[in-house]
């Protein structure tokens, strides 16, 4: 997420009561009663209570909760497939709950496309015609919608399947069609309702990866619902945790993992392998000593012995990482009277990006046990990770 982000959707005080006397239920809610009491007293089910959050332009927001937590209700309130009882949902200046029937249709066409848990493909339409559906509804002309639908199908890797019927496709491919149908529509927000939950685990992982790539390419504002924390952590920019129709916590995956708001969240996160969430950035330490490429062998030897090191990373003036020099090599060069260390720099060292999950780092600590260099996209050295630091970080997170 960039720093200069814009708010796409503002949800303010959104509530939903299922039943004929919503006012009564909301009154009791305002007196501090919870869902079970309200149900017992009034027979009304408090589906959502006072939900407030923002969705940033281009982010992938995951709404997570167990079944009955209200997540499906919440996503359907956004485009009013379910009529909210109170509250505001503001998208590009329009307040969705206040829209007239006609304006609502227009709003759904322009702003929302949805991907469903059980795909909800139209069985009487070919893959191509399914992908064209949203555009057809909007009255886009034939050639234009055929082109856009083909592009969307191509985005999700379904080239050549245009004429197939949905029933001929596997579950994973059917959901690709569902995704293509949503993408072709070119709406500003993508709503995904447990979109991958009906797929088997391997396909599911693939689809998550592909969604991330698509999201990276297209920067589409996405609201993704899931009951699966692993899935949420794998794809989310931010996570909203729902329980009994209320928000328990909003935060990045790391915040949720490392600082769970209450026991409920903590129990949720218990089963998760922390090393998949924490990244190299968390375990990274500043570099204690660094050689420059215009240093001579003796300077390097001095830095090594001063810091008690066997090897040292070498950068240029812009702090770009060039490689690593070992103490043995520097010693030999100093004895032989070489003036430069350029020839000593070895390229055989481990390096990762700052977002590399910690569990990928274990395998990289080889026998020589060089610290792992953490570099950014321009190859600038950000820090190093030593074996002990990884373990320490995991232990610390585990205690919390």
């Amino acid at each position, binding site marked *: 997420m960039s720093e200069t982000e814009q708010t796409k959707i503002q949800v303010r005080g959104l509530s939903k009561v299922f039943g004929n006397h919503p006012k009564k239920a909301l009154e009791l809610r305002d007196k501090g009663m919870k869902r079970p009491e309200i149900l017992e007293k009034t027979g009304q089910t408090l589906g959502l209570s006072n939900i407030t959050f923002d969705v940033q332009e281009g982010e992938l927001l995951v709404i997570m909760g167990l079944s009955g937590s209200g997540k499906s209700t919440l996503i359907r309130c956004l485009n009013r497939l379910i009529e909210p009882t109170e509250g505001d949902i503001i998208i590009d200046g329009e307040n969705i709950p206040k829209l007239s029937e006609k304006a609502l249709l227009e709003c759904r066409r322009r702003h929302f496309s949805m991907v469903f848990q059980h795909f909800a493909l*139209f069985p009487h339409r070919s893959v191509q015609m399914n992908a064209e559906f949203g555009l057809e509804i909007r009255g886009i002309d034939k050639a234009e919608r055929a082109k856009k639908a083909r592009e969307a199908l191509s985005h999700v890797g379904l080239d050549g399947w245009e004429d197939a019927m949905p029933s001929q496709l596997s579950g994973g491919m059917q959901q690709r069609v569902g995704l293509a149908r949503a993408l072709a529509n070119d709406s500003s927000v993508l709503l995904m309702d447990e979109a991958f939950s009906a797929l088997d685990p391997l396909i599911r992982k693939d689809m998550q990866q592909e969604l991330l790539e698509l999201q990276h390419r297209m920067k589409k504002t996405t609201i993704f619902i899931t009951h699966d924390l692993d899935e949420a952590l794998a794809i989310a920019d931010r996570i909203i945790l729902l329980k009994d129709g209320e928000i328990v916590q909003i935060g990045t995956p790391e915040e949720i993992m490392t600082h769970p708001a209450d026991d409920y969240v903590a129990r949720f996160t218990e089963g998760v392998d922390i090393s998949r969430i924490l990244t190299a950035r968390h375990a990274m330490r500043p570099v204690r000593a660094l050689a420059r490429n215009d240093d001579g062998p003796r300077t390097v030897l001095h830095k090594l012995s001063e810091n008690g090191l066997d090897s040292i990373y070498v950068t240029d003036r812009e702090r770009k990482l060039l490689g690593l020099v070992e103490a043995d090599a520097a010693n030999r060069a100093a004895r032989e009277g070489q003036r430069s260390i350029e020839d000593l720099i070895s390229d055989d060292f481990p390096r990762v990006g700052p977002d590399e999950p910690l569990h990928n780092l274990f395998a990289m600590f080889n026998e020589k046990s060089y610290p792992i260099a953490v570099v950014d996209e321009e190859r600038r050295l950000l820090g190093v990770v030593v074996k002990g630091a990884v373990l320490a970080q995991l232990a610390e997170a585990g205690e919390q």
Partner: protein
Amino acid sequence: MAIDIPRIPLGDWIEAGLDFLTSEYSIVTRGISRVTQTGINALNDALMWMPEWALMAIIALLCWRLSGVRLAIGASLGLALIWNMGLWFPMIESLTLVVIATLVAVVIALPVGILAALSDKFYGLIMPILDFMQTMPAFVYLIPAIPFFGIGSVSAIFATVIFAMPPAIRFTTLGIRQVPKDLVEAADAFGSTRGQKLVKVQLPLSLPTIMAGINQTIMLALSMVVIAAMIGADGLGNEVWKAIQRLRPGDGFEAGIAVVILAMLLDRLTQTFRKTRKA
């Protein structure tokens, strides 16, 4: 012991109502009568104008295209038998009545069925009426038909439409209500209007069920068209009726077999249409 409870004159009220309708709306009924009779005559003339073998060939071709060789051969053999028994023209007359009654029934049933599917209120209103229409003994419809439209084929059509329409309405309603909820939701989510939702999603998906209803309507129409011989409708029913009056079981069975052949032909044809649309 008998307690003298005054009899509720339900029958008298109905008769008074029917009298009122026939006398006050005779222009309407006569208009309907004329239009319907014209339709019947035109279709009859067209079908009878063709030589028997030509119509047989057309029907066989239709069977072959829609279903396959087996139905084509079966249809040809059956029609040849009817021709051979000298029942060709009565068969055509019955076919005409069935076709026209079914058309009228479907034209009314589709919008009514769609409305009943979309509105719970209308559904609650129409369902008891349909129960009434279906369980009332079929003969009863013949009686008011005569004062409305006089003796003959138009009355037969009127009674047949009322008797045969309910399945088409019911199946249309059922078909639309059975469209999976998530598909309707998907249509809504993309911003479909009611009309778009109906035309692009609900109707295409309920078509097999609607066709099953129309198939039922055709079968009921055929059975009613035969009974309608009692009020002077032409066709195979008339042959049966004559055989009863003259006590000639042979003639009666011949006409009966012709009805069975026609029924099987119509049934198989509409069924294959249903299946081909589903695939």
